């Protein structure tokens, strides 16, 4: 007689299946990511918002998510200077990879779609908040 599959075993198998699918795209935290910013929307407490391309805000072209080093980093000023933000929290939701941090009185969060790599970054401080929209791709051969 065939035994009934316990519900937790089914859940576990389902989780593994989902994880396998996500890792195939490389957005599950198993490989480092390189992300490009496209658009920025920034608002101040006086309800004034501006938006534009990342280049108009003079932002770095790429930022790197280093899961092993637990930092998000970029190079600026002709690669002469490296800046980085420590990742304080890393969670996976159903479809998103969520990274969070606190730095210089600002809280930041990066949400990365685990299937397509679309990225949304939010940074909020005392009197202002802004969003950066872009996309990420995994760095091949840079597995953890």
């Amino acid at each position: 007689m065939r035994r009934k599959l316990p519900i937790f075993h089914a859940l576990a198998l389902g989780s593994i299946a989902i994880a396998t699918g996500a890792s195939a795209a490389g957005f599950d935290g198993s490989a480092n990511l390189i992300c490009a910013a496209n658009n920025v929307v920034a608002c101040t407490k006086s309800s004034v918002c501006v938006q534009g391309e990342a280049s108009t805000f003079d932002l770095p072209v790429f930022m790197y998510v280093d899961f092993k080093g637990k930092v998000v980093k970029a190079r600026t000023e002709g690669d002469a200077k490296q800046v980085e933000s420590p990742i304080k929290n890393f969670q996976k939701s159903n479809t998103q990879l969520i990274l969070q941090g606190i730095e210089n009185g600002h809280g930041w969060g990066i949400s990365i779609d685990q299937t397509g790599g679309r990225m949304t970054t939010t940074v909020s401080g005392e009197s202002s908040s802004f969003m950066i929209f872009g996309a990420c791709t995994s760095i091949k051969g840079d597995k953890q």
Partner: protein
Amino acid sequence: MKERNGVLLSMVACAASAGLLTFSAPARADGAGWFLGGMVTSRVLSNAERRTQAEEAQAYRPAPQPVQQVQAQPAKPSKERQLQELDRLAAGGYITPQEYKERRKAVLEGY
């Protein structure tokens, strides 16, 4: 039954740890090298402030003032009119006979 409960507990523990992977990184002592809360924030906000000020300046730029029209000088009264005026002033005792003579002479000589 005990074995089954143990497996269940371990599964729950694994699920919890998988869903809540928390990193703890040391805080930076110096401001140099801050990224999202530093360099990016600074550049975005300075750009936003610059653009907001530019837009406000554009919005509140005072309307150009109309060019002030230069009033045309009134036509110089004729000598006849000036002499009549002198006569009136002299008759009214507003000027002395001496002043009357001097002014009359000036009018006739064309100043």
